[in-house]
């Protein structure tokens, strides 16, 4: 088993990764911004846009730690719901104010349209940071925080509409198990989305990227988070992760159909998508 460029057993790997994220949890968001120069926000936005969730969607965000995808999902669904309600009101402009008030009571105009997101992470520290962030930013309804392992999810079969894992599958020790679990908990017709660092094929860009990764990022890690090793692990793990086509085959092996991937920034990041059909 590999931990970055080291070789370790599976158990050791899980432990080491747990410690990495325990250490970085508090500075996770700050480090993301400084390493990617804020571009990770765009990547996550693109992921949620690609998902295009409609109100009533049940999302499982695995390795969702600090809640970035969950918050974006809620914002998106909220605005879609607003538009839906506006269109409904336009149709029903002959309702009396009493009828409108009654429909509030019946909760017909709920702002999220019954959408829900479950944030699942293996690391307690990351979930803590996520919960604090949610409070701070004012997200309350539609969110649930669950401690769980992607290789063995504590959920029942056929439950979720969408399963996302953003920058998390790289840290899973047995990727095939995680993919099988994803298949299991998704409803038929459900969608699997994976946002992850991937391989850059362009040679010039690849050299620049390598330079940046190995020379700049661990230094930033030391300066900002006081933790060189964790960020060294991070850039090494990116190199060890299977490239786009290989991951696509793995996803197909787990049973997903219509598996496809979209490269962002020339392959620095890729979004893989599959459907449980």
């Amino acid at each position: 088993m590999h931990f970055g460029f080291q070789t370790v057993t599976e158990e050791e790997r899980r432990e080491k990764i747990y410690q990495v994220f325990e250490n970085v949890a508090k500075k996770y968001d700050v480090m993301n911004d400084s390493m990617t120069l804020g571009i990770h926000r765009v990547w996550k936005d693109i992921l949620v846009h690609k998902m295009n969730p409609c109100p009533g969607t049940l999302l499982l965000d695995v390795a969702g730690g600090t809640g970035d995808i969950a918050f974006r999902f809620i914002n998106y669904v909220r605005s879609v719901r607003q538009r839906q309600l506006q269109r409904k009101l336009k149709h029903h402009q002959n309702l009396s104010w009493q009828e409108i008030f009654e429909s509030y009571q019946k909760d017909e105009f709920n702002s999220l349209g019954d959408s829900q997101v479950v944030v699942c992470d293996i690391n307690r520290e990351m979930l803590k940071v996520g919960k604090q962030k949610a409070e701070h930013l004012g997200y309350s309804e539609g969110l649930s925080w669950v401690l769980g392992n992607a290789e063995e999810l504590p959920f029942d079969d056929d439950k979720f509409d969408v399963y996302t894992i953003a920058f998390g599958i790289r840290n899973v020790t047995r990727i095939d198990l995680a993919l099988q679990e994803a298949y299991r908990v998704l409803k038929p017709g459900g969608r699997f989305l994976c946002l992850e660092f991937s391989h850059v094929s362009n040679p010039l860009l690849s050299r620049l990227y390598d330079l940046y990764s190995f020379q700049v990022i661990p230094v930033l890690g030391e300066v900002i988070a006081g933790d060189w090793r964790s960020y060294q692990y991070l850039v090494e793990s990116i190199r060890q992760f299977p490239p786009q086509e290989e991951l696509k085959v793995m996803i197909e092996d787990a049973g997903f159909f219509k598996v496809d991937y979209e490269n962002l920034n020339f392959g620095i990041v890729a979004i893989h998508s599959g459907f449980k059909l």
Partner: protein
Amino acid sequence: MWCLSGLFGSRVGPALYPLLRVVSKGNQQYPPLRALQASAVLRRASDEHKKEPLASSSQQHFDSPPAGHQPEQKPQGPHPSYTGQGGQESEDYESEEQLQHRILTAALEFVPEHGWTAEAIAEGAKTLGLSVAAAGMFRSDGSELILHFVSECNSKLSELLQKEQKLVQLGEAEKKPIDEFLRDAVEARLRMLIPYIEKWPQALSILLLPRNIPSSLNLLTSMIDDIWHYAGDQSTDFNWYTRRAVLTGIYNTTELVMMQDSSPGFEDTWRFLGNRVADAMAMSSTASQVQSTGEAVVQGLMGAAVTIKNLAGLNQRR
């Protein structure tokens, strides 16, 4: 198509793969076969005859009892679908395309309410027992839904014209004169838009997006071809193009008139259609008149030229 549906059928465990390679020598072009597993939704082709709605997902699984537990890698002994021997695998499971087809057909019901959008597709997927996320298989602007609808309408028109032609051949109906035939065909086709007429302008604008123009143009021209074929058009000369251009013009303009027609039963539109077809008929006779007039004029000019040459003494032979 058969190799494509092979891709989408069930998959074979990695252990069997070397065995299959020996068996299927001619199939090196296939990508690696996938792990054997029950597909959650893609139905066996035989089930389609029973027309069972895909109500509860777990009920439709082919191997596991609906007790809730889905073993991940269950070898599919009795299913010969993915033998890799060519030809056999296409029959057993419906392909992804057929499933998409079903979802789009189900989605049409929700178009009057939601428009030609991903929401309508999501609602359609829901009625089939799928998650709303299945709408992610299609583009978010709804263009695939519209193209599906147009292609369905064209098929229906084709069937209708074929039936009529059969009746004429059997002698049970009179062969219609050409203008009446065209008028009825275009009217029948446009009537199929009536349930969706409110959202049709949106659909037209989406069909005009550069990305969709090749497909929408293709559908339009094949429909016009169809109509002329059943009208008995056998020409292979220049007239073929003019006839199609004329009918395309008639169809498009009538469609646009229909969009903003508020008369009862769209009678204004049908009157407009009748007038345009009459114009087209008159135009073709005018065209032949113009041609013969043109020929006469040319002959007159030739005659005048010869006369002048004679007068000038240029035609004399010595």
